[in-house]
């Protein structure tokens, strides 16, 4: 179309989740038509976020501060950690304001078929936190998939000897559903109805 710069832009946009080639072309065109108001602010926001945002060394959340704003918030209940698969799940739980404690981002779930083993997950910091004497309950809030359930089983096995209460959120998630796609009411109910693991 209009030279390699535009093709490269569209190619990069099309790789983003939720965008295909057609929406990438539309987004690129919109930006190119208004470079000063849309494109340059976006470019600098992207560069700034890429430079500043890092995973929290304690919980794995993404933030420009480390520890992140949740780990640093002294008003939160520091005796409870909610373990989720991804930052998207943390965002969903925070949007619904259903969890007052801290979080831990696992970064995936165990899958022998996909070659994801315990070594590939953010597990050692979780075990360290759970065993620090402050934490009394670890809530496992992974999706109700086979991989999610297997991972919760594995984690419960490692966490229980540390003397913490291990619970998991209620079953009944939609098929293959990540927490992120659940509505707030369902999330709150699932978290309230957690049971011993």
């Amino acid at each position, binding site marked *: 179309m209009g030279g390699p710069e535009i093709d490269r832009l569209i190619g990069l946009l*099309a790789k983003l989740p*939720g*965008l*295909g*080639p*057609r*929406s990438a072309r539309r987004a690129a065109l919109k930006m190119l038509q208004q470079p000063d108001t849309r494109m340059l602010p976006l470019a600098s926001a992207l560069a700034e976020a890429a430079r500043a945002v890092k995973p929290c060394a304690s919980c794995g959340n993404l933030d420009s501060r480390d520890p992140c704003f949740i780990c640093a918030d002294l008003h939160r209940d520091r005796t409870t950690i909610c373990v989720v698969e991804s930052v998207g799940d943390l965002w969903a739980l925070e949007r619904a304001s259903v969890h007052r404690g801290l979080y831990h981002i696992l970064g995936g779930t*165990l*899958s*022998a*078929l996909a070659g994801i*083993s*315990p070594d590939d997950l953010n597990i050692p910091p979780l075990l360290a936190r759970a065993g620090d004497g402050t934490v009394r309950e670890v809530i496992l809030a992974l999706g109700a*998939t*086979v*991989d999610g*359930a*297997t*991972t*919760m*089983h*594995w984690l419960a*096995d*490692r966490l229980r000897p540390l003397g913490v209460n291990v619970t998991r959120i209620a079953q009944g998630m*939609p*098929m293959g559903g990540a927490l992120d796609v659940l509505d707030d009411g369902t999330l709150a109910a699932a978290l309230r109805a957690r049971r011993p693991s």
Partner: protein
Amino acid sequence: MSEAAARRLLRLTLTDFRNYPALLWRPETAISVIVGPNGSGKTNLLEAASLLVPGRGLRGARVADLLRQGASGAGDWAVAGRFAGPDGEFDIGTGTLPEGSPDAQANRRVFRLNGAPPRSQAEIASLLAAIWLTPQMERLFQEAASGRRRFLDRLVFALEPGHAREVASYEAAMANRNRLLAEARGDPAWLAGLEDGMARHGVAASAARAGLVARLNAALAEGVAAPFPAAYMTLICPIAEQLRAAPALEVEEWLRDGLAGGRAQDRQAGAARLGAHRADMGLADAASGIPAQLASTGQQKALLIGVVLGHAALIATARGAPPMLLLDEPAVHLDADHRAALCAALRRLGGPTLVTGTDAEAYAGLRDEAGFWACAASGLEPLAA
């Protein structure tokens, strides 16, 4: 239990599906008889309808194989059905999406309900139940247990849409366990987590299978499929056997222990020797006790039709409406009396029904009620009476 809402198929459209570049067909009656020579595309039409419920359809085909040979355009196929339900019409669509679409996945088909993505496949299954009978099933009792298990699971799924998820979850947990054992990555807690999944989903699936077998046998014993011989179905499965004597949680524990104790042997064998995937289904003539594998082809066919009719009656009672019935060449191997009985049974059930045959005469008993269509590569034409 959800109510199967589809009362009638009003419209079926096919796009680049099997031999059809484009087909728009409006059946005018609940029952349609599709007549044509072999290779005219009758079975493809039934297969298209079978894909309007979740699963792999009546041929168990891979998604990529459903695309018409030589299809132009983006290389995507689609099937859509419009149904009349108790609260008005609704549309179920399925097919592949062009690469790059937001929810496109390679070799996956997607569903649409009234043009929008459904919340889950179970939502589709709650609206439409479908059951089919094909000439290939005449070899059901000569071939491997996996075919009989699939046949049984299809019957369970039509009654309880959640069954598909239990079976898929069970198989996913088992596939992961097989891989872990093969790679000899000895993390006992990881294996235990997978065995826990196999136990929970395996016991749930087995309980659903056992429940279906009991209800079907009860319905058939009442004569719902008469004059087709009452079949007696058995589930050959150690888990189901345990469930007869112990509560489900205890059976889960038993299966977990059995799997944990069998790791070494399973690693050697390359497969789990215990579990829901080892189940088999047996069928016998309830009156004579003759098992299906020893019966003649005609007797087997009559037994299977009895099972399908009994199952349809069961669904009609349990879910408020009969399932969509897709019967490919059901009259072959049937004598004149049984052909007439089949026609009478289909009239009684009255759900969306597609029947194929090479000659219309076999379905004379449907003459007043069904629409008769001639099937050709170019499409469907009303068949003159």
